[in-house]
């Protein structure tokens, strides 16, 4: 049976997916401009962010309208709540992409410190996470979403590796500090992007299963036995 709310939810999902697409593009553009040393392409990131921001407001309004008019319950309610949170995450991700472009711009003003190997891998990994999280959202697939949570570990590992490497550079030669810091900030931005993707995956799991898996709450304590009457049903 097609309900009025189904159409609205469908529209909302499409919007989130589109927004996610722009986030992906923004991350890609920011890292690629850095890798290819083409600072003028950072402008594109700002354009994407403007679109993301506009979408952020529209999705919020749509959710508010839906809550007020449809009084969603159960899975519908969880989905709307998840959308509100995913929406915020995506907006923050747009901001992070812009941060990458700022830091990248500063980095490109000087000669490169070293060949970029781990940063492109990190960027690639984060984009895969965003795409997978949103795919899981659209398909209501909690297994796929859980997979995203695992991937975040490799992003964190990459960040850790980059930090170690750059600290070594800075230790050996203090003139590299400024450029190394720019790269550290970018690695940090990418790591934050991974965290946002993780948040999205967690919200998807909540929307689909009703289980809250945040902050290690994998096993929410269920109440125990009922005293009387075998619950027949």
């Amino acid at each position, binding site marked *: *049976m097609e309900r009025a*709310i189904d159409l609205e939810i469908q529209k909302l999902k499409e919007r989130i997916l589109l927004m996610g697409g722009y986030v992906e593009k923004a991350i890609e553009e920011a890292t690629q401009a850095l890798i290819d040393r083409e600072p003028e392409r950072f402008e594109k990131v700002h354009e994407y962010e403007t679109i993301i921001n506009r979408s952020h407001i529209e999705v919020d309004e749509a959710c508010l309208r839906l809550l007020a008019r449809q009084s969603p*319950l*159960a*899975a519908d309610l*969880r989905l709307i709540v998840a959308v509100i949170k995913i929406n915020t995450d995506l907006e923050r991700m747009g901001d992070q992409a812009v941060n990458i472009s700022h830091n990248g711009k500063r980095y490109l003003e000087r000669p490169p410190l070293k060949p970029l190997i781990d940063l492109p891998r990190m960027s690639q990994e984060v984009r895969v996470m965003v795409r997978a999280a949103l795919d899981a959202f659209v398909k209501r697939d909690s297994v796929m979403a859980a997979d995203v949570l695992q991937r975040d570990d490799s992003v964190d590992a990459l960040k850790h590796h980059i930090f170690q490497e750059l600290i070594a550079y800075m230790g050996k030669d203090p003139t590299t500090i400024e450029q190394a810091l720019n790269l550290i900030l970018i690695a940090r931005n990418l790591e934050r992007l991974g965290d946002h993707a993780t948040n999205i995956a967690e919200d998807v799991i909540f929307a689909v299963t009703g289980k809250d898996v945040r902050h290690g709450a994998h096993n929410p304590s269920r*109440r125990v036995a009922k005293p009387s*009457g075998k*619950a027949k*049903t």
Partner: protein
Amino acid sequence: MSGTRDIVITQTILDAKNINAWFGSVHAIRDISLPVEKNTVTAMIGPSGCGKSTFLRCLNRLHEEVAGARVEGQVLLSGEDIYGPGTDPVAIRRKIGMVFQKPNPFPSMSIFNNVAVGLRLAGMGNKALLAETVEKSLKQAALWNEVKDKLKAPGTSLSGGQQQRLCVARALAVNPPVLLMDEPTSALDPISTAKIEELLIELKKEVTVVIVTHNMQQAARISDRTAFFLLGELIEYDDTSRLFTNPRDKRTEDYITGRFG
């Protein structure tokens, strides 16, 4: 054990055990067990004809007053089976009050007498005490201020919402530990509905309320526990906040998200 989640009932005041009910040959309630926690509001929801009202009427032995109706099973009120041998349904109903769908003050009876009649027939002759109890009940029902100057006016002269609160006062007058409500606001406007709902939140400090409602938002707003009925069966019984955010049974989910019913 398909859908019901195990919930902890710390102090059971009303405990229905394996209730079966029939209208003639129609098996309307199928083996329902449902413990009710003291000083809570327990809501019963479900599509029309799912048996929730019938089940409610089994809880004060009103079901059997319908011609051809029959009940089997136990309902323990503070441990005592109201269907036990030799139990007087009339005495039981004094302990389990009921408010109906349509406001139904007794015709050609004053506001005062509507509230007092239960007490008088239960043998309260002391006029001062009677007046005091009537006042207390009307205050409990949040109606006193509106009617204190016209207690002699007919109960039917009040507005629909006031009439329903009069019925609440009438039920409360005999001081029942349990109050059953059968869609008490379905005939009322939103403001009167809000008043009744407010009232329930207050009332549950003293009375245990079991309410049948068609309005899921209402169940979500006012109840502590919710039971979902379908085709005479109890499908799911859980904390209200959990049932409405994360029901366990697919049928509950489908119903509360409006996929059927």
